[in-house]
């Protein structure tokens, strides 16, 4: 990271700490804000959050590693999370996943070359009665078919 980038990041986190407070319980909202803005939480940001909350960087890292919606490395602009849990599985998740993989030319866990899409599995997202379901960034799509999934992706492209 460049020095100016670091300074901006520090300012940004100081602002977040002012808003959410210096308690340990402020950690998640702060991390979520950084994630929302930067699509990931850079190494330097983790250390700054730790410094400003007076905890240790590894504690921040531990929390990030626990939550699938927080990540330390940049991912694609659209993060596609397909539910892999049993209800969706029974309702045809396998076909949807194949169609998505074919359409994007990557497998689960990967990011497209143009950094547009990242493909991941998620566990139950609470749409079991309307599966198969997926989440793209913060929006939920349900009752998917292979065709519908491909169409949704194409609209985003």
């Amino acid at each position, binding site marked *: 990271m460049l020095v100016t980038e670091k300074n901006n990041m520090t300012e940004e986190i100081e602002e977040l700490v002012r808003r959410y407070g210096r308690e*340990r319980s402020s950690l998640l909202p702060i991390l979520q804000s950084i994630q929302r803005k930067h699509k990931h939480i850079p190494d330097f940001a983790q250390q700054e959050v730790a410094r400003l909350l*007076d905890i240790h960087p*590894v504690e921040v890292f531990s929390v990030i590693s*626990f939550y699938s919606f927080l990540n330390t490395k940049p991912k694609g602009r659209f993060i596609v999370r397909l539910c892999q849990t049993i209800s969706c599985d029974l309702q045809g998740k396998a076909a949807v996943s194949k169609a998505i993989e074919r359409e994007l030319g990557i497998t689960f866990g990967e990011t497209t070359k143009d950094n547009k899409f990242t493909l991941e599995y998620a566990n139950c997202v609470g749409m079991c009665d309307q599966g198969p379901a997926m989440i793209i960034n913060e929006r939920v799509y349900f009752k998917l078919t292979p065709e519908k999934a491909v169409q949704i992706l194409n609209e985003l492209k």
Partner: protein
Amino acid sequence: MESKGDLRAPVSQTPLVVEKPKDTSAIGGMVSIEINEKKVSVPLGTTILEACRQNGITIPTLCHHDDLCVAGVCRVCVVEVEGMRTLQASCAFPITNPLKIKTSSPMVRKARRNIIDLLLSEHYGECYSCFRNGKCELQSLAKEYGVDNYTFGHVTEPKYDVDKSSYSVVRDMSKCVLCKRCVRTCIDLQEVGVLEAIDRGDKTHIGTFLEKPLADVICINCGQCINRCPTGALRANDPSDEIWAAIDDPTKHVVIQTAPSPRAAIGEEFGLGAGHSMTRELNTALKRIGFDKVFDTNFTADLTIIEEGTELIIRLYKALVQKENVALPQFTSCSPGWVKFIEHYYPEYLDNMSSAKSPQQMFGALIKTFYAQKAGVEPKDIVSVAVMPCSAKKFECNRPEMYDSGYKDVDYGLTTRELARMIKEAGINLPEMPKSDFDSPFGEASGAGLIFGATGGVMEAAIRSVVEFVLGKKVEDIFEKANIIPLRGFDGIKYMEIPIGDKVGPVPDLIKHLVPNWDWLKGAVLKIAVAHGTANAKKIMDDIKAGGKFSECHFIEFMACPGGCLGGGGQPIPTTPEIRKKRAEAIYAEDESLELRKSHDNPNVVRIYEEFLTEGPCSHLSHELLHTHYTKRGRYIA
């Protein structure tokens, strides 16, 4: 300032200490409970585990440790509580109302066995080649609680690569049982925070920041995590194979220095209770193993006192008389864990660090210069080993600046545990050894050097000398038997004021060229403080930063390990508050038994200033060999 430090951690992260209250009504009184149908009464808030222990009932534990906060993660300690649907973790269950507890019902026994079986099903068990073989809590649980087959399977291949990047600590996560003792140690006792649980579910493991190798993150090498790990997942980086090779090589002259704390603790590895000093037995054993010379680290501890004390006097003189801008308070520098801690977290205060090397490194530099000359040995043929209670000493001797003799000053730092193993491998039963003395030319040392092993010891040793230097009277006239009691004991932070008064003595010859007289100290009050465990060091440093009471101190002793060196990360496992107390008693008792109890009275120290360091303490040559500099490391890692 206190308040912030204490509010930081949630209640669950502060150690739960239930002291027996003097007045039980003050805390809500006693509660009558029934344990295995026996009626007992305990103070309100006692955990079930505590209550059982007090009444002679053993409950197995794994994640619980007397030094640490409650975690309640392993469930090995479950008991049945009447009226509750599920079994309860006894270590995490404070008693607040009358209960009926069963500690060995069929349900408890079955659950315990299952829990241990499940732990084993994920554990890479290969006890033969494991350093904890025979001293492993998991192994003893399996033995004691009737595990006779692997009900849920067994791991035969290691799951993780062993991290050997650090000079001090080796991490083998295939042996980890996720008790998080290391995590709590490093965060709560040491405030370094290297380790945490990473990922979740069956992928959970203990990792470092960004999963980097230990050498690349901010670890102060204190080894406290090793001492609290119940298994072989954490161990020190053991150089004993290299040392055997040197001993076996006839062209090498292998010398060893022994620090006071290992001598007070090594008996534990040979089945003695804590608190037996083995100093002179060890001398014989080391010779029999094949070391050519055995020296006493206390000799350079005495030297440290002279150098560091002189440095303090120079600083005070500059500040008070010459009105120069010098960094005060002066900080001690003999704990390499503390050195690395300040280099990372408070690099702006490195000027406050005494430039004096630690006794280990002073000795290293002298052995390959002064001793080599005297003994007529080529320094390149000397292999210099240091027996230390400490894993950070391994890192310290590998610091690139520690080559002042022209060679690597100290070749290997060996922990108490590792030395005990070498002695056993040589077929020697240490307690049966006849006693023998240290080798010349360094010979015997003072009790002041000896008490370096306990928290407050460096300060006490320094005060014994400074008081006699400045006041010109015997320290015994001020402190009974020269024991400076306020500096002893295990309070996290100790503070003391010593008024100089208006009678001062003559300046001793040794430092006459540095200060003309002591008149400038008349009426002054010497303020000193002591901290052990880097969490306490952090408190003092934050107070100094905020301009609090400790910023007005003149001299502060810091030791990275709880209890000081005697609780070091290389000491026999287990180390508990009780054991630390006994080791301290052994050290202070040995000190009191000695004739020579002040560093400046040590004739060998006097002699080295006459023969070798002829320009006196803090002179050019002594700076070259006995002093060092520090690195501003900072708190960020790329």
